[in-house]
């Protein structure tokens, strides 16, 4: 296999993921409706209740809508990453996953391609969401849209890798919903997506520590800072380490000789 063949494989997997997403219109609208409901309704309702003081990267007081947009962008990545994993469980049950696994490319590469494909689809949704938010007068600097891309890519890869790791441990599609309830919602609510962490610290220090430990918090902050042209080095480091760990776990999980799939199926 030469580099051109590797590129062809990546292109094919990305194209398939994109086509599947476009064909499943309800998934497309579902992915957008969720954050928009939060932005249009939740944020409007809680604007006066949840005041936000001046915290980095913001230079001045901001409306609550502006505060939660990076969190909602990360929310799209989180749900989309998990949805992508759901499709892995579905693919495995329905058999099409087998076509991927019998490809002569290394398995780690196939999983990485799958991850990149899912990330690109998620990022397209985020940019569409940011466009709608712009009309809602959430207007980060133009350079922020550009700088947000690597932050979105890293965050999306990290969340997708977590999803892959989970999907390697899930036996059936029915189990997935339960696992998601134990992963998506705790991750989302125990983060800085909807409220700044200092507010959580005021209420409960242990909960504050949990939020700081949560890699999703750092994904949100990475996106938030990048949208305003800055880099949160702490968030970047945590996201990179989490990406490495989750990806390694997923590759081992999908290894027929060593992974969870192997342990489930054989002696």
């Amino acid at each position, binding site marked *: 296999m030469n580099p051109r063949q590797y590129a*062809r494989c990546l*292109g094919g997997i990305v*194209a*398939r993921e994109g*086509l*599947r997403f476009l064909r499943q219109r309800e998934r497309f609208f579902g992915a957008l409706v969720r954050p928009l409901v939060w932005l249009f309704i939740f944020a409007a309702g809680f604007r006066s209740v949840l005041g936000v003081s001046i915290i980095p990267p913001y230079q001045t007081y901001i409306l609550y809508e502006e505060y939660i947009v990076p969190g909602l962008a990360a929310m799209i990545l989180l749900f989309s990453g998990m949805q992508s994993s759901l499709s892995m469980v579905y693919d495995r049950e329905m058999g099409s996953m087998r*076509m991927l696994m019998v490809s*002569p490319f290394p398995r780690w590469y196939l999983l990485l391609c799958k991850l990149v494909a899912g990330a690109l689809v998620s990022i397209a949704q985020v940019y569409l969401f940011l466009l709608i938010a712009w009309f809602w007068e959430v207007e980060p600097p133009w350079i922020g849209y550009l700088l947000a891309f690597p932050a979105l890519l890293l965050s999306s890869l990290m969340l997708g890798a977590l999803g892959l790791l989970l999907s390697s441990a899930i036996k059936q599609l029915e189990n997935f919903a339960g696992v998601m309830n134990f992963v998506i919602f705790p991750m989302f609510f125990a983060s800085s997506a909807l409220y700044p962490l200092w507010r959580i610290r005021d209420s409960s220090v242990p909960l504050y520590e949990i939020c700081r430990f949560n890699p999703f918090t750092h994904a949100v902050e990475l996106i938030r800072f990048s949208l305003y042209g800055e880099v949160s080095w702490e968030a970047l480091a945590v996201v990179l380490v989490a990406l490495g760990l989750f990806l390694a776990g997923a590759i081992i999980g999908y290894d027929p000789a060593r992974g969870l799939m192997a342990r489930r199926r*054989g*002696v």
Partner: protein
Amino acid sequence: MTALKVDRLGKAYRMYATPKARFLELITGNPRHTPYWALRDLSFELAPGETLGIVGRNGAGKSTLFSLITRLFIYATGAIDIYGYNLLTQSRRALAQLGVVFQQPTLDLDLTLRQNLRYHCALQGIDYSLHRAEIDDALQRIGLAEQMGDQVRQLSGGQRRRVELVRALLHKPRLLLADEATVGLDIHSRQAILDQVRDRCHNEGVGVLWATHLVDEVQPTDKLVVLHGGRVMAIGSAAQVMEDTGSETVHQAFSRLTRSVAR
């Protein structure tokens, strides 16, 4: 060189008497399972251009064998070599020789026929545009050239199966694995698929491993392995197996070999 060499292959699953036993094994690390051998001491060879029928009832171990040859699972004992490449140590080279039709349908229903074939090309690292004429020709032969732009879910079961076969042979594999490829199809569709496989494989020297519980799909000239309860009951040319069991048909030989044997 052999297309496929399976040597003393064995695969076992863990069986637990109760869910508690599984839990205790997990917690304590002490084995509390008994091995259930889905395949045991299976050995055979397949030459290029040869067709080998693996017949057995449901649960005989046919699909397990396919999962092992395609490296979806890892075997417990023995070895598998595909055109001289060991499946464990040279898995990528070994897998590159394979074309596979799984028992479960594996086409993406949301995509069109063309998109499915394009995706398969990508997974094999080949350029779809270079194979376009060939694909059109293959689909023409099975009467589906007009449906290239249709979503797969609009095709009938027989049409989907034939597309899967075209797809499996698209990258010119040297060994075709077909696991119950004709299950659920009417007699005409079955025959069309069998003819399609025999034509292509005979003309191009592709080895074929054809697993089925429909024993009439095996011809007397084919090689035959009869599996029952994960063990080999008979192996040889179909004509030889018929002679050894004093049978007039493959079906009769199969019945005699598997009727009275308990697992």
